[in-house]
């Protein structure tokens, strides 16, 4: 795509945001006001700013992930604005903040490149652990950063500075940092991790030493689930780790061990933890308790079914009937208002994003960059499958965000950082 084509694409996404928000206002019987222009302009500033940042700091980068993200971001933003204009007006600033931080990351990486990431891998591991543990800070006290309990999970921190307080989910950032660490660690030790296998009767049996890293990841994932009650993050981290370990070593046995541990952990969680058992029941038989545990899933199904093939149109359905529509269930909300047509577009865009990330990983010559690109692509794809799969009843529902579409600052920041890393990888490979 030419530079002009890329700019036209981003401009079109911004215009789409303007038209979409205008349509939402009109369908609510409200005038087209300054909100519409402001949304469109701030959205354009965020994406064009990031685009120019990439052109300036990583000029050889592949433009595709950013373009796909702008399309997803536009659809998601209109739906969030439609569900709650107040959330929408916050979300557009989060786009700007996230794009700014992503450009900042590119600037940091400008001179030394991704070697910085590699060099500070253990610092990153510690940082990731700290980020994961931050929400366990006391809920009250004099310390400016406090944990926050939201819907039974300890995923949030509140940073208070005087009267200003800011909520954030550090786990979202931790996911990216952990992938950075894993890519660095695995590119160092892949040979050792791949070599040690024994054949017993024709079957490849892993060496006990191989079990150690898998075991650590498993324990960490279980800890996230038990301590923070975050099923989604736990599944996501474990699945990303196992697939990346497999990608680094080519050892199918890791998938076997990981799968086995995953099944054992799932079974234990289902038996031991009520909140997991409730979710499994709501997944298998949501209509058994349509006003209780199955409520959200049932409302999501009603929304998507009511949308049908072509949808009600932005602002003309009732996706606001779904609890947490703007975060967990934004896919169902888009499904109601844009219909199956819109749902297919969204899933296709995510598949294209995975393809773009995979392309960057496959073309990379440097092992670390290859693993980093692969890890970021995997965690992105797995997250999309987990949350949409939960909404469409393919999987039990886990409360994680849909990248670039769900409302939420932490999620947007994390995904823009992911875009910046992919841009930097492709830039270094093409340089």
């Amino acid at each position, binding site marked *: 795509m030419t530079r002009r084509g890329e700019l036209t694409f981003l401009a079109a996404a911004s215009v789409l945001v303007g038209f979409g928000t205008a349509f939402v206002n009109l369908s609510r019987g409200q005038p087209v006001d300054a909100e519409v222009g402001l949304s469109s302009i701030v959205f354009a500033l965020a994406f064009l700013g990031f685009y120019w940042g990439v052109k300036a700091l990583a000029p050889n980068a592949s433009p595709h992930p950013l373009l796909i993200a702008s399309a997803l971001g536009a659809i998601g933003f209109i739906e969030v604005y439609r569900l709650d204009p107040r959330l929408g007006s916050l979300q557009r600033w989060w786009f700007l903040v996230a794009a700014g931080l992503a450009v900042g990351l590119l600037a940091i990486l400008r001179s030394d490149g991704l070697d910085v990431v590699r060099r500070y891998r253990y610092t990153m591991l510690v940082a990731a652990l700290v980020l994961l543990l931050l929400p366990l800070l006391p809920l009250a006290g004099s310390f400016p950063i406090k944990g926050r309990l939201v819907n039974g999970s300890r995923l949030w921190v509140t940073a208070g500075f005087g009267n200003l307080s800011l909520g954030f989910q550090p786990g979202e950032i931790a996911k990216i940092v952990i992938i950075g660490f894993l890519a660095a660690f695995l590119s160092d030790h892949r040979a050792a991790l791949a070599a040690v296998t024994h054949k017993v009767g024709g079957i490849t049996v892993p060496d006990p030493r191989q079990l150690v890293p898998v075991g650590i990841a498993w324990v960490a994932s279980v800890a996230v689930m038990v301590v923070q009650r975050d099923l989604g993050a736990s599944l996501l981290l474990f699945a990303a780790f196992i697939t990346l370990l497999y990608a680094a070593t080519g050892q199918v046995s890791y998938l076997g061990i990981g799968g086995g541990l995953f099944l054992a952990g799932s079974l234990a969680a289902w038996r031991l933890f009520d909140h997991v058992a409730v979710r499994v029941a709501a997944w298998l038989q949501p209509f058994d308790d349509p006003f209780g545990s199955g409520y959200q899933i049932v409302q999501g199904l*009603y929304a998507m*079914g*009511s949308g049908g093939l072509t949808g009600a149109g932005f602002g003309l359905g009732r996706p606001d*009937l779904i609890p947490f529509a703007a975060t967990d269930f934004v896919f169902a909300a888009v499904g109601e208002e844009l*219909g199956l047509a819109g749902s297919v577009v969204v899933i296709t865009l995510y598949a294209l994003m995975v393809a773009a990330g995979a392309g960057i990983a496959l073309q990379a010559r440097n092992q670390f960059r290859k*693993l980093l690109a692969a890890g970021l*692509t*995997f965690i992105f794809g797995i997250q999309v499958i987990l949350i949409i799969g939960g909404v469409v009843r393919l999987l039990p529902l886990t409360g994680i965000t849909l990248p670039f579409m769900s409302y939420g600052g932490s999620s947007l920041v994390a995904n823009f950082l992911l875009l910046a890393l992919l841009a930097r990888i492709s830039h270094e490979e093409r340089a």
Partner: protein
Amino acid sequence: MNGPIRRVVYALFVGMALLLLSTTYIQAVAAPKYRSDPANSRVLIAQADKERGAIVDRNGLILATSEETSSARRSFTRKYPLGEITSHPVGYSTVLFGEAGVEAAFSDRLRSRQDLAISDMLTAMFGGDLRPQSLRLSLDATLQQVAAESLGDRLGAIVALDPKTGGILAWVSHPGFDPTRIPDPAYASAVEADPTSPLVDRARSATYPPASTFKLIVAAEAIESGVATPDTLFVDLRGLELPGSTAILRNAGGDFCAGGDDVDLRTALVRSCNIPFASLAMTLGSDAIGSRAALFGFNAPIPWGLPTLASVWPDYSGDLAALAQAGIGERDVRATPLQMALVAAGIANDGEVMLPFLLDAIFDADGEVLEQQVPRPFGRAMAPSTANALTELMVGVVERGTGTRARVSGIRVAGKTGTSEAGTNPPAWFVGFAPADEPIIALAVVVEGGGVDGSGATIAAPMARRLFEYWLLGR
């Protein structure tokens, strides 16, 4: 490393393909099921702001209407000018709180069909009218008001109907509610939580011991079967020892019915004496009384379009003591106010019970009559001669018996009082009709707790008189 990476990416693509499949199933295959599921609030919301047809009384007075709140969005709110007074028969139609009354029973006629469902578009293509239709009820708004005023603050119900057609003239259940405010969740939940149950339509969804008004059915069975005539004599006792029990059944007041020798059926009914009717019930048997009660509508919901509780005559075969008490409308005999109004109406209409109706006619949006109610018989409860004999007895009740407070000057009124003494909230009753020779109104009045501070004679009969006076004399 590219091989494993490729394979993981393929796995992700497979996962996304499954997402597409599942999404397609939900939005294409299962969509109609989810879209029309009654638990899907969108079904009701689609009707929420839509225009609904008007509901008017027999004289065209508006009882319910849709007022446009925003012409840009064509959104409407439902208004009920008479408010609480017509709240139970007219009911309400809301998104959050469902529907009730006529609004519920004829919702399909009142609703606008312009909601772009494919079936509606086909209807329109073939010239069908999608605009909401309007209803005219048989109710008379002024009589309704008189009934509500006469009931006052007492909990209870009044049902009045035209005995010749079955058309309901007044239908009051107190307490009521303000139907215009039901869409407000705070108001709706407050009303729902109210211990006096304002949302329960006592006229059809509550049953009470019919007490002495049930004697009309026992007398009907006795006369019709030839077991007794109005002149048949009974031994006049102070107390009747119930068979197989130590309990003693007494007349109201505990004295003889007519001085202590013999008493005829006529006097027993006029003075509402319990002992003759208890012995009569034991003579007739549980099955005979039950069959007669069923001819009036007992033991099955009245099939008239609105959900109605069945009135109950239990099987007392083999338990004479219980049968004796049931024969005077106590024990576990239960009746809705509507049921007892039908008993009065059946006697008034020469023994033929007409099926009650609230809906008089349906109009299209241009005011053309689409359907006109045709009076339909529910069934014959007794021969005309029996009905005439009972009418004479009931006239005696009002002229010289327990029902004198229902008397209207210059008009022969027929009636029967009832006062329950059982339970914590024993009701007081009056059922009757007028004029006795050419009845144009039959009614039932029930007052909860009326048996505590009064009786059917002192509390219910005066209320009935006010309805008779308005309907017959216009005052």
